[in-house]
């Protein structure tokens, strides 16, 4: 720090401005920010395209190497795009159920997804998402909806079988479902909950 910056007055000003007591973490304000973020539309396709142009200019050699590399990677990995999914339905039939459409396969009963409702009570939560083995433990796609009575719920299509899940509260707190049996966790030592899904 230079001469003019080393100063008891400046130090005191700094402490005053840093300690700003009114700027405590405010969960409601953060929740408001997040609401406006999730609700704002994503950039248009055109805007995204424009963004791709805004990169530092490459050297000719660099660009050439990257082009060849990209083509090579694309050729080699072409088969990796959309790998065959175990439960990929061969035909889509049936009306949407709950919040997500259910797709049916004509003859393979084990590939029919079963609408499965999850219910959780958490009075103070701002947001709750469902995470588990059916969504790679990433909750973005499965938020719960808060009902006026304070219960949170969502209905998601799950393949028949045994599934392990948990609830992610306010994006930070991972909770097991007190209404469900506990799962073990041989790998990470953190139990979740179990749901057995089948057609009734």
């Amino acid at each position, binding site marked *: 720090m230079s001469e003019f910056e080393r100063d008891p007055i*400046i130090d005191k000003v700094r402490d005053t401005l840093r300690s700003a007591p*009114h700027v405590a973490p405010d969960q409601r*304000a953060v929740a408001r*920010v997040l609401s406006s973020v999730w609700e*704002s539309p994503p950039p248009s396709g055109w805007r995204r395209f424009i963004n791709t142009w805004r990169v530092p200019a490459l050297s000719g050699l660099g660009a050439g190497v990257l082009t060849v590399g990209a083509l090579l990677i694309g050729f080699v990995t072409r088969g990796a795009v959309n790998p065959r999914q175990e439960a990929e339905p061969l035909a889509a039939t049936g009306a949407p159920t709950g919040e997500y459409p259910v797709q049916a396969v004509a003859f393979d009963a084990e590939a029919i997804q079963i609408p499965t409702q999850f219910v959780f009570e958490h009075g103070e939560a701002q947001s709750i998402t469902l995470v588990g083995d059916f969504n790679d433990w990433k909750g973005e796609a499965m938020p719960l909806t808060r009902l006026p009575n304070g219960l949170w719920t969502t209905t998601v299509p799950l393949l028949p079988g045994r599934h392990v899940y948990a609830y992610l509260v306010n*994006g*930070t707190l991972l909770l*097991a479902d007190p209404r469900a049996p506990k799962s073990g966790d041989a790998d990470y030592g953190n139990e979740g909950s179990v749901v057995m899904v089948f057609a009734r």
Partner: protein
Amino acid sequence: MDDPFQGSAAWRGGEQREYPPQTSLMNDSRPASSIDPTLPLRAKGGDRQAFAELVDVMYPRALRFALHMVGNREDAEEAVQDTFVRVHRNLDRFRDDARFEPWLFRILANRCRTVLEKRKRHSVVIQYGDVPDRIGAVQEAERDWTEEVYKVLDTLPSEQREAFLLRHVEDMAYEDIAAITGVGLSALRMRVKRACDALRVRLTEVMRDE
């Protein structure tokens, strides 16, 4: 590692343990920073939880800066909210090797400048009605000093105020401030110097009186 899962104790009124604040064990060599460097990368990859954590961690600092820049809470909150929306929208442009805070502050500083331009602030008068917003629960003894600091800060030209806040309150290196403001290093040093001179001159009296 703390057990992030709770059993039935979590059901109602049971003790709940939050994740520890993100001091990720996954990257032991991260630079001194208030945020875990994995967060912006995960957020960039579509991880909403990670983005929510980013907001949680950075919101107080962002609000503090915005408050000192624009002087009132309503405008400050709007600037901060707008900033995070833009951050989220532009995550795909965030380079994996970049640091998040300077990038965030660049957007935030722009937002604050926009607010100020919209308001067409003149250099002299602060809005006394806003002062309670910023002083809050400050002790009575400190009140005079704090009020004076805000008064002087508000009378600084906005670019000096901005440079001073980034340098001395947000503790940023000049190189980062240059990236945030788009201004050259020597011009920046000059802005900080002038801000310090003004503060020193006007606050020496106040200190003497205490």
